[in-house]
């Protein structure tokens, strides 16, 4: 997909004024956060599992070549094939070649963010192959020709009435007077429409939450069962996975799995956790005749050994965006590419470049909630700061930011002057703020005061209060 991350500010402005979107975003705040907290509280070992899972991934990344080769060896022994792809273009071509060789014209797909990342659907359509998204959320956004706005709930930006309108517009095989105003009716209709698509498909593509070096299995974690019908019914099963999904053993996958659903949806375990390895075996009554794994790098190996390596531990649970005040305010589309929220703010510049996505690491208040809920203990705010530094070094920051920082630096490096100026400013603002103690308009703060008042400082500056506390021997 064509990124619009460079336009984050404009995207965010549009999102803030989008009434439908703002209504839908309310569901995130009420749902995900409480459910996660409850599930985490129920598992006393959660913190130990976080530590352990972090160690597993660090160990795996330090030995990434070994475990990937081991995984490939197992897949090959089972009669499958691994296609190593350095770039998005390589991966698209590998999939097209498989389609061409097997004569596949219709392709069903389970939810895969990597497939979104490489823009697979548009590419397949351009090559006269029909891709059919089968995850309910992915299905509706495919009808709407929109990208996902969340990595685990791709249609979280939509309200029920929008679903109804789209189903009525696209499902013309049903009587127009049918009732569709309840979620149950929408789900039943989608189930009926997609059931036939599974049966008609020549080839099924799924993503992967894990690749297991020990067994050569790839793992998907779903609730709907769409991924399972996608991979069990067609002649060919293609897994598309980025290379950091690898873990050494079943026990390692289990440790990470215990964190994943709890962090993502607050479930103890997703309904279906499915391990797929190779094509159907002799004596099996079902399963695909061919099995392929498209293994994608696309900029990830270049993150190894850098200050962004920890990001490769990410298991795509979405907890960071579920807890992010910026994501709550603007939703996922504003981020302009596949990965939104804090994880997107770190990953997107790594994968598509800081020139395109340099704004994203600025979309943070550094409140630290993302890091505190990340099951893999990824220091997201720290990495966003690294990107800000790089952006500054490369002179990509706007001139207003740079001159503002220079002005601030002039005062900050002259402590006496700084104290005098801030003391003066605080007193002046208190006076001007009057009895209300707030400003509805203030020079240079339009970005803030457009949505809320700016509070007038009350009393003394932070430095003055600090000095007084020290003098009185209080706990500072």
């Amino acid at each position: 997909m064509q990124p619009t991350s460079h336009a984050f500010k404009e995207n965010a402005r549009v999102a803030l004024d989008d009434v439908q979107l703002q209504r839908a975003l309310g569901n995130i705040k009420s749902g995900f956060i409480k459910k996660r907290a409850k599930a985490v509280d129920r598992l006393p070992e959660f913190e130990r599992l976080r530590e352990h899972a972090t160690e597993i991934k660090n160990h795996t990344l330090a030995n990434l070549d070994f475990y990937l080769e081991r995984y490939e060896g197992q897949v090959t022994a089972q009669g499958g094939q691994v296609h190593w792809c350095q770039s998005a273009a390589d991966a698209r071509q590998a999939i097209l070649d498989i389609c061409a060789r097997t004569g596949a014209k219709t392709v069903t797909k389970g939810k895969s963010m990597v497939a979104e990342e490489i823009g697979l659907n548009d590419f397949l359509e351009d090559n006269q192959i029909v891709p059919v998204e089968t995850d309910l959320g992915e299905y509706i956004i495919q009808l709407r020709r929109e990208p996902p706005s969340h990595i685990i709930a791709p249609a979280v930006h939509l309200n029920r009435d929008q679903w109804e309108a789209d189903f009525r517009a696209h499902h013309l095989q049903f009587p127009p007077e049918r009732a569709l105003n309840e979620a149950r009716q929408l789900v039943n209709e989608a189930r009926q429409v997609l059931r036939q698509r599974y049966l008609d498909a020549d080839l099924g593509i799924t993503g992967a939450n894990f690749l297991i070096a020990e067994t050569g299995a790839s793992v998907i974690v779903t609730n709907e069962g769409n991924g399972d019908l996608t991979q069990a019914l067609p002649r060919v099963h293609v897994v598309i996975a980025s290379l950091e999904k690898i873990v050494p053993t079943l026990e390692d996958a289990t440790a990470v799995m215990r964190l994943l659903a709890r962090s993502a949806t607050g479930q103890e375990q997703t309904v279906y956790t499915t391990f797929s390895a190779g094509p159907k075996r002799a004596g099996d009554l079902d399963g695909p005749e061919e099995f392929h794994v498209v293994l994608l790098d696309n900029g990830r190996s270049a993150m190894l050994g850098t200050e962004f390596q920890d990001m490769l531990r990410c298991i795509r649970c979405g907890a960071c965006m579920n807890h992010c005040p910026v994501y709550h305010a603007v939703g996922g589309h504003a981020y302009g590419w596949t990965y939104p929220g804090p994880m997107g703010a770190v990953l997107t510049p790594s994968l598509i470049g800081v020139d395109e996505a340099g704004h994203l690491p600025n979309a943070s208040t550094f409140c630290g909630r993302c890091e505190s809920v990340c099951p893999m203990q990824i220091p997201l705010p720290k990495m966003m700061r690294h990107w800000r530094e790089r952006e500054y070094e490369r002179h990509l920051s706007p001139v207003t930011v740079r001159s503002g920082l220079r002005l601030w630096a002039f005062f900050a490096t002259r402590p006496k002057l700084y104290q005098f100026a801030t003391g003066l400013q605080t007193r002046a603002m208190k006076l001007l703020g009057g009895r209300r103690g707030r400003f509805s308009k203030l020079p240079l703060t339009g970005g803030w005061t457009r949505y809320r008042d700016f509070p007038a400082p009350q009393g003394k500056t932070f430095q003055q209060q600090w000095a007084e506390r020290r003098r009185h021997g209080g706990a500072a």
Partner: protein
Amino acid sequence: MTEGREQVLTAIRRALKRGPLEGEDRAALERRTAEHPRGPVPSRAQLGPQETLDLFVQMAEEAAATTRRLQEWGEVPQAVLAYLKSRNEPAAVRIAPHPDLTGLDWQDGAPMLSVDQGRGEPDTNVGVSRAFAGVAETGTLLLYSRGESPTTLNFLPATHIVAVDAKEVVGGFEDAWDRLRAAIGGVENWPRTVNLITGPSRTADIEQTLQLGAHGPMNLHVLLIGDAGG
């Protein structure tokens, strides 16, 4: 193909500032993979046999499965029929070709029930499978593909009934993996598909409201046969 492989592996090794692993470094990783050490196992996965079985039932029902305890395998046909009757579903099932199911006297135990066997088909309304294990920590069933357990039977039917011996309900996933490795004779015989199933299919994609029966079964009924292990 081999070109892509070399490009990716070279890029990884360049970033890690080393060549391919050899000698003791490599042997240590081989050992870790072969020994597959356990991480922290939740205490709830390490209970006694009866508590483990109780936890399995509790967690499976929390995930919206229904369960029924039976004394012996011979009661399965009658229990299947009773379940379908209680839900006003047509009395026709497709059973997995597992000897524990095909060996039952369906004619005598459930004379009203129409029974055939095989993989799941688009018109299969009710599937009956034999699980390999139950996992108590999350109320999860483990099934794996082979002639006697076709994967399509787990997903195409609207109602999925799964029989498992109460002694096969283990505490945690690690126990299930060890049992599976032993049953198949090592990971070199790993099956095409392993399914962990926790409750019936669902979605919350529409306004975060839970709806059961998205694409897979709308109902999951678990028959637990016999007493807990000891």
